[in-house]
């Protein structure tokens, strides 16, 4: 049958695994699935492919943190999931690995702005002149996440990740529209960066830790890395099973 149905099944599996973890009372910190815990979960189905996928998931050493603290990571999970929530189309940012993707990016050259011009002096400029701050992306993220928490506590007396989805949206909107006034960074600048890296995590090659199993691509019928489109270029729409750079190795 179609790929869509297969996805739905594995989606249900993930949900039921999560439920199992919850009811089994195992302490899992900020992480719902994966790691050792994931390996403890029995599977209902005998489907080979899914077992293979499950085995891969348990062995995904890539899903650990290089940059965020556990608490920051929880906030990022919650916020990115609001930017791209799970719905009838398929998984949201969290299940697609976006929070890990962001963590890994901030740990590397992107987080250090290593190919950007970061020389002083720093002056406040016009919007059309672009970013003029002295902070690097990883520093902006740290400040932004802290401010997101502060603002949640101020407005709702709770952690951002513990708010209802409506409350979370409310907070994010206040950042997006600069209703929140911050002294060190621009609230909307931080929000736009968060939105930008969320899209990257959804749709970059799975090699970077997001877009798990290419399900980000699948949702929008994007075929990823194909060698050529000679056969389809003159034709009407065609659904093509995606390929990733891993298939090039």
């Amino acid at each position, binding site marked *: 049958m179609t790929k869509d149905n297969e996805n739905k099944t594995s989606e249900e599996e993930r949900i039921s695994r999560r439920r199992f973890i919850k009811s089994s009372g195992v302490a899992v910190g900020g992480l719902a699935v994966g790691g050792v815990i994931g390996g403890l979960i029995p599977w209902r189905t005998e489907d080979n492919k899914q077992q293979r996928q499950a085995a891969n998931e348990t062995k995904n050493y890539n899903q650990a943190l290089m940059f965020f603290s556990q608490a920051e990571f929880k906030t990022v999970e919650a916020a990115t999931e609001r930017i791209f929530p799970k719905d009838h189309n398929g998984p949201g940012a969290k299940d697609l690995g976006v929070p890990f993707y962001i963590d890994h990016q901030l740990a590397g050259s992107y987080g250090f702005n290593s*190919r950007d011009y970061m020389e002083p002096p720093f002056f406040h400029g016009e919007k059309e002149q*672009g970013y003029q701050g002295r902070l690097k992306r990883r520093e902006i993220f740290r400040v932004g996440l802290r401010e997101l928490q502060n603002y949640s506590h101020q407005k709702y007396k709770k952690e951002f990740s513990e708010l209802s989805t409506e409350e979370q949206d409310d907070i994010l909107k206040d950042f997006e529209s600069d209703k929140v006034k911050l002294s060190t960074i621009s609230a909307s600048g931080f929000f736009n960066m968060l939105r930008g890296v969320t899209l990257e995590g959804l749709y970059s090659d799975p090699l970077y830790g997001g877009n798990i199993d290419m399900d980000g691509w699948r949702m929008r019928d994007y075929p990823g890395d*194909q060698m050529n*489109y*000679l056969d389809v270029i003159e034709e009407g729409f065609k659904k093509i099973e995606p390929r990733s750079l891993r298939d090039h190795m």
Partner: protein
Amino acid sequence: MVKKMPKTDVVIVGVGWGGGIIASELTKQGLSVVGLEKGLERSTEDYYMVHDELRYALRYELFQDLSKSTLTFRSNEKKRALPMRHYGSFLMGEGVGGAGVHWNGQTYRFLPYDFEIRSQTVERYGEKKIPKGMTIQDWGITYNELEPYYDKFEKMAGISGEENPLGGKRSDKYPTGPMKHSPQMKMFTEATKKLGYHPYTVPSANLSEPYTNPDGISRAACQYCSFCERFGCEYGAKADPVVTVIPVANKTGKFDLRTHSWVRRILHKDGKATGVLYTDLTTGEEIEQPADVVVITSYVFNNTKLLLTSKIGRPYDPATGTGVIGKNYAYQVVKGAATGFYDDMEFNNFAGAGALGVVIDDFNGDNFDHSDLNFIHGGYLALTQTGARPIQNNPVPKGTPSWGAEFKDKSLKYANRSLSVGAMGASMPFRHHYLDLDPTYKDTFGDPLLRMTFDFEDQDRELAKFTAKKARGILEEMGADHVDAMEELGPYDITVYQSTHNTGGVIMGDNPDTSAVNNYSQMWDMDNLFVVGASSFPHNSGYNPTGTVGALAYRAAEGIMTYSKKGGQLV
């Protein structure tokens, strides 16, 4: 201590399209050429893992490292210019092949009108059609004079295309036939024909068929792989200096290509260039390369900067309008576009090639009557299919939030259900748009950054509105259920990608008072110095620039050969 190398016939600064073409032409004719390129070596084998949107399109793998050098920008002289700290509006190439490695390959000729823009505008509409401050001028060359060089560039690159029904006269047809037509290209063709326009296939440097060029270089056909703009071609199908002109130069044994070599000064004495000073980035060593002829092909910005830091030519002064170096910076007006959304039709938007599309010139140049319009020139309108990669392409109808459940739903739905008609609006120069040296910010060697003073004018706002309206009309004719078109152009914003079609700064003309180079790209003030590239355009046309850059490079090569035999001014 500066190390001094043995003298060479010619030294070239920057080995992209301009540098590559000139190196191959001169070495074929027996001159010894040293090519200095600040970036690294490149080859087709580098692109095995190239289908990676994040690495190449968003992390700018192939582009100039801004931490070492960038430019500063302000919208007008009253403002403080600030550095472009990361990429946005345009992307600078770096490494062998320059931006020719990661360009799309849409390869146009400018219109006969462009080369005589001032005299033809005045002749048809009178002097008062040109608003105050607009510094358009004739180029000092006509389309007919440049035509043979366009032909040469197109044959070298193997341009695939069909005749433009509204373009200048051609001496020969394109060397390869037009690219394939996708369903949306067919829709655009039918709709524009119905509207009475004259569609033709975008002339493409992505080969439609295998091709062997006059230099004996064979290349494979394009695979419509969709990773083209901002990417290198793993098939060698896209014309790029690395797979066309540079191997030809290498084969002569007369080309000494040095990478990681950052040129910092043009050396000169008594009105003659004597060579260049560069730094070997791998050792930090300062090296002098003496030469009989110096050629600068390091893109618009660095061409201008090198002349200013080397104190060659008269710097432009916007207060008096005198001087020439830095004058007439212009760009491209691309925002006057529209997107159509389809509820019941799906397209293979993910597939494509850098130069795949259909285009009309009915509203370009002076192909239409401007008597009742508040602008001159125009731009082409095109439907291109360059491969809508998912991080950067998430069109949703106006009014949709940019995140959250509704965004997700709509962006997924329209990924393959939307089509855009784009415009390539011409950009006219103004007295107060220019390039000079920044007083504050420095590059990695402590040399000043180049400063850009530029904004959109009424001319641009009117033009963009006009093209947006035409784009809307075409999409409506193409049966879109809903069309969103640009409403207001807004100020020039350096943070949003528009095009890498920067022009001017070292402009050409027929008069040393108002131009820096003659029509061989030879400096009026220094006979043995040639400055080649879009830096010599007195304005930018309603087309992508590289066909014209290539033609001017072939003409410059011819001029350098003549100069090396006879010396003196060529015109």
